């Protein structure tokens, strides 16, 4: 999967949770999920569940804690996919 493809999938996943539409419009790998996209911190667990379903992976608690930016999410997804 290319980075571009993964970004597209992530955009679809986070869209319903985003409270900052401008931040979402210019979402990049650098975007911070809480600060730039203003996703409610309680919803991070829902984003992660949606990622798990989409990519068919399991994200452990430690990885979850690191998942604060789009890039860290992509790294974790890539790691989990490569472990399969």
């Amino acid at each position, binding site marked *: 999967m290319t980075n571009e493809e993964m970004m597209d999938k992530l955009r679809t996943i986070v869209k*319903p*949770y985003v409270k900052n539409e401008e931040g979402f419009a210019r979402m990049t790998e650098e975007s911070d999920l809480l600060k730039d996209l203003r996703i409610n911190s*309680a*919803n991070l*667990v*829902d984003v992660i*569940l949606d990622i798990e379903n989409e990519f068919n992976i399991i994200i452990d608690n430690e990885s979850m804690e690191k998942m604060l930016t789009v890039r860290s999410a992509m790294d974790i997804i890539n790691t989990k996919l490569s472990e399969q």
Partner: protein
Amino acid sequence: MNKQVVITGLGVVSPNGVGLSAFTEAIRTGMSGIRFFPELKDLNFSCCIGGMPEVDETLKSAYLSPLQLKQFNSPGILYGCMAGIDAWKDAGLMIDETGEPDWDSGTIFGAGNSSVDKLRESIYKLDAGQVRSLGSTALIQTMASGVSAYLGGLLGLGNQVTSNSSACCTGTEAILMGYERIKYGKAKRMLVGGCSDHGPYVWGGFDAMRVITYKHNDTPELGSRPMSATASGFVPGSGAGALLLESLESATERGARIYGEILGGALNAGGQRGDGSMTAPNSEAVQRCIRSAVKDAGIRAEEIDLINGHLTATSKDTNEIRNWCEALNRKGSDFPYVHSLKGMTGHCLAAAGAIESVAALLGLKHDFLFPSVNCEDLHPDIASLIDEGKVPHHLIENNKLQVIAKASFGFGDVNACIIFKRFAG
């Protein structure tokens, strides 16, 4: 100095009508909201009929955002939010999405239980070892204060935000609690009401207790028969009712339309002593509650024009009428008009008192008494206490009634009675 409290907004999600105009039309024409549910039959229920508001996906999304509707499985909260937002807007109030909380407005919005369906879904996941898959949506829907928490956020409320629970007294109790908060100057506006879930997981306990009727599975619309000689148990219902209560000062300042005034009321319990029990009301407590409400309202019992009863269609209806007779010291042709909404809606449990109060205020505002349906065969014991003409079988229009007494009684031997009055202006 106690504040005068008026009602400036109403909202309702009822089995026989969703929204104020549909509901008004339904109660004027005596339209039933009771239907047969094959699901209940499949689960071996004795009573396979009930009242459930009809709300489609489009209507849902007019009240809750796509994010709020994600993993949402809570009809009670949905109905509560719909009725609550409607009442807020009906009162001419705005929703400010970004500004400061409204420190002067709060909510007391009750529920009998919160999201039994969501709880059930969660328990299946938990038992399968999938606790993490609950996500963030299970807790907020199943907490007892779910409905008030949702409303607090939707409306930006900054005063007290809580949910009360007192079984079938819940809705009526919420109104009185909100009334007191405004009366004592602790809030300017309180959104009050109650909501109820539905379906087998809510109604099953009642079915098992044999307090709901099994005789009308083929004739659902005739099933709920308050005050009838052929009443055979209540019909379970669901929905929500909401009232926006406001200090007269605040309402006048805003130039708000006023549906009526709350003169006073009373809450008490029978301690499950005497003829009272977990499931049956102590008659002395009921009478004391009614008398206290009349006293609190500062009126004489003779001034009551209409009783909007609890009257569920069980054998207790006669007791209720007898208690009103005793408490008001009025009987026969001296008795006020009395009716029950439950013939059309079924017993909407925690939402009942709120939905019925909305009906009472619509009647007060628009000068009508809705018909008490399905009691053409008035119970002879009731007919021996009061003049049969006091039970309206048909719509009565152009009646400028002044004072309505509304009561609700609930499991736990708890009672609530409110006195509403036409607003003189």
